[in-house]
């Protein structure tokens, strides 16, 4: 297919420039355009409350999308993130409500209800990594298993019932503030900073890019391909677990049918809009953050202006296609 494209390239000399510009600055331009549009049209857009709502809603998307960026950088995909959120979100209330462990000390229970669900999500992430790295199963199919079964497990564990709770200590991760900044926003910033440093400055970060760029070459130069692949799925699982905790803490309730539903799409969309190629070999963490903000702003803009939620789905679908198309085109020229 490439041969055909190059033969036609001279005629299209003007187009690649537009495409390249869009791929480099398109996300940022879209972000600014959305801001300006909202300032002009949406009532009360410039308020602390709006900022607060958008920041807290975008936090979980960003956290999951950062993990997704790493997975996609290796040439993989993780469809199970939403289900892992549901699993972690179902496990945490069961732990601090004392249903799972015979411990009386509330402090210990709270700490465990942060740690164990995330560990659980990491274990499932490792399982994804095992299927992909060891058994060489295509990532789409390998993570499809938990995409189906994961939510089912959470539903079976809770019998599909809503778990309602009020626990200020646990809910601190969603309701609490440190120096006036919501705790989940701080978690988001920490996750983004860590991931940025990981990709930029650490050995394994470079190895992730190498595996996604050219797996065979990476293996021949001594990159532990399997370990790197397993690592990204474990990280993705862990971050999905954290996001699941935040969501249930924010809602004061855990509904295994709903927690993280459709999150895999939001995360993939954030990565695509953010400028990482879905075929791997690139991990643009800051781009992903920007992508998540664009997606959040699009949804907010539509909802704040009375467009039904269902129509927002269609817009999101179009956004994904356009973003992926632009990235792929830009990569070719």
């Amino acid at each position, binding site marked *: 297919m490439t041969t055909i494209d190059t033969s036609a390239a001279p005629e299209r000399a003007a187009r690649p420039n537009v495409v390249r510009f869009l791929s480099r600055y398109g996300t940022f331009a879209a972000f600014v355009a959305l801001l300006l549009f909202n300032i002009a049209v949406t009532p009360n857009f410039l308020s602390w409350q709006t900022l607060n709502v958008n920041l807290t809603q975008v936090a979980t998307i960003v956290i999951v999308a950062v993990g997704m960026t790493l997975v996609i950088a290796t040439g993989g995909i993780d469809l199970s993130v939403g289900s892992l959120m549901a699993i972690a979100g179902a496990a945490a209330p069961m732990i601090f409500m004392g249903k799972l462990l015979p411990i009386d000390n509330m402090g210990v229970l709270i700490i465990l209800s942060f740690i164990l669900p995330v560990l659980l999500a990491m274990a499932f992430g490792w399982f994804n990594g095992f299927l992909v790295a060891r*058994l060489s199963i295509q990532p789409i199919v390998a993570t499809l298993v938990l995409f189906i079964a994961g939510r089912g497990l959470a539903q079976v564990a809770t019998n599909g019932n809503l778990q309602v709770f009020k626990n200020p200590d646990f809910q601190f991760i969603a309701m609490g503030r440190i120096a006036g900044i919501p705790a989940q926003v701080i978690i988001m910033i920490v996750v983004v900073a860590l991931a940025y440093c990981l990709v930029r400055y650490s050995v394994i970060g470079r190895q992730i890019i190498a595996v996604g760029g050219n797996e065979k070459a990476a293996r021949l130069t001594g990159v532990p391909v399997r370990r790197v692949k397993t690592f990204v799925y474990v990280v993705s699982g862990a971050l999905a677990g954290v996001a699941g905790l935040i969501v249930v803490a924010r809602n004061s309730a855990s509904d295994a049918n709903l927690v993280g539903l459709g999150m895999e799409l939001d995360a993939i969309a954030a990565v695509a809009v953010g400028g990482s190629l879905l075929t791997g070999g690139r991990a643009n963490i800051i781009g992903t953050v920007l992508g998540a903000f664009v997606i959040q702003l699009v949804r907010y803009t539509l909802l704040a202006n009375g467009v039904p939620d269902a129509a927002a789905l269609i817009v999101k679908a179009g956004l994904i296609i356009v973003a992926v198309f632009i990235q792929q085109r830009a990569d070719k020229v």
Partner: protein
Amino acid sequence: MLKTLSRLFIPKSSGDYARLGVLLALAGLILFGALRYDNFLSQFNILSFLRYNSMFALIALGMAFVIITGGIDLSVGAVAAMSSVVAAYLSPYGWLPGLAGGMAAGLVAGAINGVIVTRLRIQPFIATLAMMLAAYGTALLLANNQSVSVSYDTGFTTIGQDDFLGFPIPAWIAAFVYVLGWVFLERLPTGRHVLAIGDGEATANLMGLKVERTLFAVYALSGLLAGLAGVILASQFGAGQPTEGVGWELFAIASVVVGGTLLTGGSGSVGATLAGALLLAMVFNILNFENGLGWISLSAYWQSVIRGAFLLIVVVLQARLMKKTEAP
């Protein structure tokens, strides 16, 4: 001599293994059910089994073609839901407008998938994942977030609820479509092109096959069959259901994979896909009976866990067999 014998009795490729396995498993399950439950082979159970699962068999066939080309269609469940709404709205004008409208809605969605995959060259799973969103969005918008009752006066419900020559009409439809699919894939040149594309798109292109056109047709077909399943859904349950169809794509993918079609494309069979769909449906039928006996009590939520476990086992087995056949 030995070679000829072994060729006769020992499966050659991983596909043969899977096909043999799925047929044995199907036979074993039927035998198990017939011995264990009183009403398993009753007319009622057989007919309602066929009536209900025809929808899934139709979707699985479309999925098989897509997967044989090396792609995937994650939008079928949402497209079926959307088509069921369209069909329900058109059902007051007669059964034919309902049927044609629902199928047309599916065809349009599938054609859009085809254009995005072939023209924009976007990976199938992204394109169809986006279509899944868009189709659910459209279904909810059209239906105003609730189910849409069909008309009972125009004969529309006949499609899903009535029998013809003692068998449910949906089963006739599915059987007819499967025969067409078999003839197409195994006997017609274009069917061989589908297989060739899955084996290697670039090679197929160099051979002068119309790769883009064939790929487009495959996605359009998958959409069309999902639309047909949506019509049957609306007709069978008396309502267009915008929130139905969640997880149908997984049922279809699992059926195809269980039938021995490699997810990497290039091989696959229509008959084995039907066997895969029946096997998967049979598992749930037996679980229902087991629930009825009271030995185990599985909530509906177990369905997705079992579906996932099933997919896992098959995929792991496939990966194993692939590795074995690849080894020198």
